[in-house]
């Protein structure tokens, strides 16, 4: 009997290749291609007066220099608003190359194509762009004040304003015995994949076709966008994702200007053209996230139960809105976490600033929402003198209330309806894991040693696996190799492993015989992409459905050959046998031969198959009317709604009594993503997510000066945590299956990141005894807060 693969911590099959330097990333391709570089705006807000490119042409090796004037057809039109929304009343997008105005430092103005990147950058240095600078709008306060506008025709700098209300908040708030108002702030951060973006285009002039490689999270999306922009038949454009060195959201945004310009230049020049983003470009011309100002007013009874929750927040969407308002919509809805809010009203303003645009980054608005809700929970507990877990517990949605409909519209336009989850059980596990009830004693012990420690907590619910669909294609070759294709892309998550596990189980074959291809439009033309923690839910279920199609066909053919009922057959390790009669069997690969009537006996499998082919009916065609040749099948999974994963984190921090340095002593995670296909990979997702969360909580910020210059646009000054800054993560799991999909899966990709900022704020607050209302927090900021709260012990104050 084959070991069941789903649920096993199978070693990642992609790792030997990736960890030994044998990955094949974008920049590993196209060694002979021309290379592109860009002149980017040094100003946050300016009009372009003149562009002088003459000196650049004098350099040997320069093949082309393009400005907006050169962009023909739809390439010269504004980039698309990918996800329109009725509330997005003033959407604005840039051009592939700035037309007459630049709206953030880093916006592309001139494209140079040259023999190599060195020459291209030399040429960029020779191009003179004359600007008439305009006063920029930097920071949410300035955007809100709207004394200056980013776009003249977007009054108030407002891209979108959306209000949702469930119940009567004003009445419930007025009747509440207790109310609190919190003003909260959360800074910008960014995905920062190790590999930046990159595009490599091969133009086949004879065939008038394009093959495009892009380091993207959606090859089908890029394909459709490029075909539209270049006004080409879809059939003449194929997009392939090579190995992708991380995405975390920034590569689901598409098309990036370079994804249009590079193939456009390749077609125009009749040459292969490549562009590999460097780190500085990534900082100033990709995307950021997270920046919000929030105002929460909450009404609650004397037991801490929520009666009314009134949230207003201001979301910094940067200079343009090509990805719509997905991020603030998610904040507005996912803020509720595992709680029943009473009457709920949420209103946001998505505001323009002269900074890099904002699109989803792992967590995608949820970290901000979780932060707002969890800060509020702690404030209620402090106000009433209750244990923080007790307040949370009293507001939980209970398991017997599932499915639970919040009465709101989620990011996918469908109801915000939780499918399952056991929040009291998760909290009990978390308290047990971190030793919640013993912490007071630990704190006293630490205090006797002159140490300050704090315990923090954060809970979240995450809508995962949003539709509309993904597909799976499964094919059994005559040598027994099983090829699986799905259209969404891989950035290192382990899809080659988990999708193979699912197919191995469904089809009854050995794991090592299953080979998974992702993100290649030649293999799967219909797909959405990898984001919203949807890979396992969507493509996992899709390949399972496709494997069932293949299994059914294999059993039908085998049943004919063995003259038994398909119901009496089973498939184990690629061998179909009669249940209870192991001697009567036929290999799956033989069925693959038999499934194709064009059967030249060029190998032993084909020879074997002929023994089973038996007598044929001369009145029937070799392929029946309702059949197809080959042992392969395809199916699509399309859910009615998202499935909601959840988790709870707790951290113990120590703050230095003098220097205010913050150290995470313990980090505990309870995680429930339904059925785990591969617990080791889930664990890795949680660890990686926590690492990025720690970055957002303690280290990372985008330091813009008032002129809109990003002062820390390098890995020297943008502080991604090293392994030395990431705590050991202690985990425990619940598996509450989703009732929504056949495999019972929920997404796990973003979970680890979501509550970390909230948890660390909670823990630092607990250690210090004064409220933390702005994150991330650095030692210098905590030190300054202590001075404001005059909480530094006199002896230590004197000492420093």
């Amino acid at each position, binding site marked *: 009997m084959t070991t069941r693969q789903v649920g096993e911590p199978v070693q990642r099959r992609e790792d030997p290749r990736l960890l030994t330097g044998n990955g094949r990333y974008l920049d590993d391709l196209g060694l002979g291609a021309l290379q592109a570089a860009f002149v980017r705006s040094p100003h946050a807000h300016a009009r372009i007066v003149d562009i002088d490119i003459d000196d650049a042409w004098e350099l040997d090796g320069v093949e082309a220099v393009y400005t907006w004037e050169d962009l023909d057809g739809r390439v010269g039109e504004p980039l698309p608003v990918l996800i329109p929304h009725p509330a997005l009343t003033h959407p604005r997008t840039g051009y592939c190359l700035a037309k007459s105005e630049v709206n953030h430092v880093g916006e592309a103005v001139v494209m140079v194509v040259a023999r190599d*990147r*060195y020459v291209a*950058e*030399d040429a960029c*240095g020779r191009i003179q762009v004359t600007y008439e600078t305009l006063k920029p709008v930097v920071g949410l306060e300035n955007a809100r004040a709207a004394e200056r506008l980013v776009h003249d025709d977007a009054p108030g700098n407002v891209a979108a304003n959306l209000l949702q209300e469930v119940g009567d908040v004003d009445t419930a708030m007025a009747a509440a015995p207790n109310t609190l108002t919190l003003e909260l702030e959360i800074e910008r951060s960014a995905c920062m994949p190790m590999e930046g973006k990159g595009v490599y285009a091969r133009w086949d002039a004879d065939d008038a076709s394009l093959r495009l490689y892009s380091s993207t999270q959606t090859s089908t999306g890029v394909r459709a966008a490029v075909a539209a922009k270049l006004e080409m038949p879809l059939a003449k454009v194929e997009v392939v994702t090579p190995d992708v060195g991380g995405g975390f959201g920034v590569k689901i945004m598409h098309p990036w200007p370079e994804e249009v310009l590079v193939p456009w230049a390749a077609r125009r020049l009749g040459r292969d053209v490549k562009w590999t983003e*460097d*780190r*500085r470009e990534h900082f100033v011309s990709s995307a950021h996230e997270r920046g919000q100002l929030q105002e929460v007013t909450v009404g609650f009874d004397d037991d801490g139960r929520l009666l009314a929750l009134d949230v207003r927040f201001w979301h910094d969407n940067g200079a343009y809105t090509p990805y719509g308002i997905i991020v603030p919509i998610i904040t507005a809805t996912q803020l509720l976490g595992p709680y029943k809010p009473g009457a709920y009203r949420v209103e946001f303003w998505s505001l323009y600033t002269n900074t890099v645009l904002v699109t989803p980054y792992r967590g995608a608005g949820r970290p901000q929402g979780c932060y707002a809700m969890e800060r509020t929970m702690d404030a209620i507990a402090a106000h009433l003198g209750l244990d923080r877990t007790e307040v949370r517990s009293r507001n939980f949605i209970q398991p017997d209330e599932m499915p639970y409909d919040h009465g709101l519209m989620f990011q996918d336009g469908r109801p915000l309806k939780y499918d399952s989850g056991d929040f009291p059980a998760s909290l009990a596990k978390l308290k047990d894991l971190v030793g919640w009830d013993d912490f007071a004693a630990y704190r006293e012990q630490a205090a006797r040693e002159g140490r300050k420690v704090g315990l923090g907590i954060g809970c979240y619910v995450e809508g995962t696996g949003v539709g509309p669909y993904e597909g799976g294609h499964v094919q059994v070759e005559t040598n027994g190799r099983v090829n699986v294709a799905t259209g969404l892309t891989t950035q290192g998550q382990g899809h080659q492993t988990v999708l193979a596990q699912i197919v191995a189980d469904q089809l009854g074959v050995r794991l090592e015989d299953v080979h998974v291809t992702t993100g290649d439009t030649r293999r799967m033309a219909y797909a959405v992409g990898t984001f919203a923690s949807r890979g396992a839910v969507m493509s996992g279920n899709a390949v399972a459905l496709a494997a069932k199609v293949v299994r059914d066909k294999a059993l039908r053919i085998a049943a004919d050959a063995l003259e038994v009922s398909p119901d009496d057959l089973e498939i184990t390790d690629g061998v179909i046998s009669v249940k209870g009669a192991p001697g009567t069997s036929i290999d799956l690969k033989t069925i693959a031969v038999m499934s194709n009537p064009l059967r030249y006996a060029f190998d032993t499998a084909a020879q074997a198959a002929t023994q089973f082919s038996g007598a044929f009916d001369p009145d029937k065609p070799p392929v029946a009317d309702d059949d197809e040749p080959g042992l392969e099948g395809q199916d699509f999974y399309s859910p009615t709604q998202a499935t909601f994963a959840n988790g709870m984190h707790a951290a113990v921090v120590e703050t230095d009594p*003098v*220097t205010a*340095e913050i150290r995470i002593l313990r980090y505990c995670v309870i995680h429930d993503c339904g059925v785990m296909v591969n617990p080791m990979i889930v664990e890795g997702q949680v660890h990686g997510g926590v690492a990025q969360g720690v970055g957002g909580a303690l*280290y990372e910020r985008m*330091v813009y000066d008032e002129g809109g210059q990003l*002062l*820390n646009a*390098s890995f*020297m*000054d943008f*502080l991604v*945590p*090293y392994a*030395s*800054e990431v705590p050991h993560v202690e985990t425990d799991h619940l598996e509450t299956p989703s009732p929504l999909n056949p495999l019972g899966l929920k997404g796990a990709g973003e979970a680890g990141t979501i509550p970390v900022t909230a948890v660390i704020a909670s823990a630092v607050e607990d250690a210090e005894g004064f409220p933390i209302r702005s994150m991330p927090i*650095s*030692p*210098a900021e905590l*030190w*300054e807060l202590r001075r404001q709260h005059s909480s530094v012990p006199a002896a230590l104050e*004197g*000492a*420093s």
Partner: protein
Amino acid sequence: MKPAPFVHHAPRTLEEAVAVLGDVGHDGKVLAGGQSLIPLLSMRLASPAHLVDVNGVAGLDTVEVADTHVRVGALVRHAGLERHEGAAAALPLLRQAVRNVAHPAIRTRGTTVGSIAHADPSGEMPAVTVLTDGVVEAAGPRGRREIAAADFFTGPLETTLAEDELVVAVRFGRLPAGTRTGFVESARRSGDYALAGVALAVGLDGEVVTSARASFVSVTPVPDVLDLGPALAGRSARDLPLDDVVELVRSHVDPESDIHAPADYRRMLAAELTRRVLTTTTTPTEGAA
């Protein structure tokens, strides 16, 4: 992030290197470990027309331990110095400090002498150079000369080295018997440029302090020595006037604000780190020179 064009020179002897520098030093840079220079080139913050790559020059890669000093050649990598047992025994401060230089990968390529010649105020080894009354050995078209550490550093990234001169070695002075040393720094992330750091050398006669000197990382425009002797000499290690030391450090350092911490935080940090390293260095278990 590709460098502007430059001519790469690869001399094989010191004489050749000096000759090349004489020709192109006015528009050239010496390349040793490259851990500071190459990023500057790639970001086009510097675009010298010539790089004089001394990695192939023979005879510059040795650590020599003498009675009065430890001499570190221009091609000794931080990692090589870190692992050099003789150097660590003769002058423990070298290993105590060099361990704090960036990360292992950078220490494997970067040279100790290069970081001294680079004269970044946030460098650890310039602080050690001044604290040990080090001597910089330079070679140029006008011959060889020796520059005392106190005369070498003139400002952030500025030294008295001429543009056609090459640092051949740095001699770190060994400390008198009975001297204990310590080095501590604090960075936002492990291995980053320190927000503040301090190197300390304390002379002890039994439990009585005979001398105490400190130099700092990231909080003074050039590395210089703060003599804590007047405040500490004659005092018992069990009863040090730590508050006085804190005040002395606060008034000595002159940090600048940046995006990672304001000046007053760095001043506090330098003083607190000094207090801590003084306390640990004068406890009986720390290494003696």
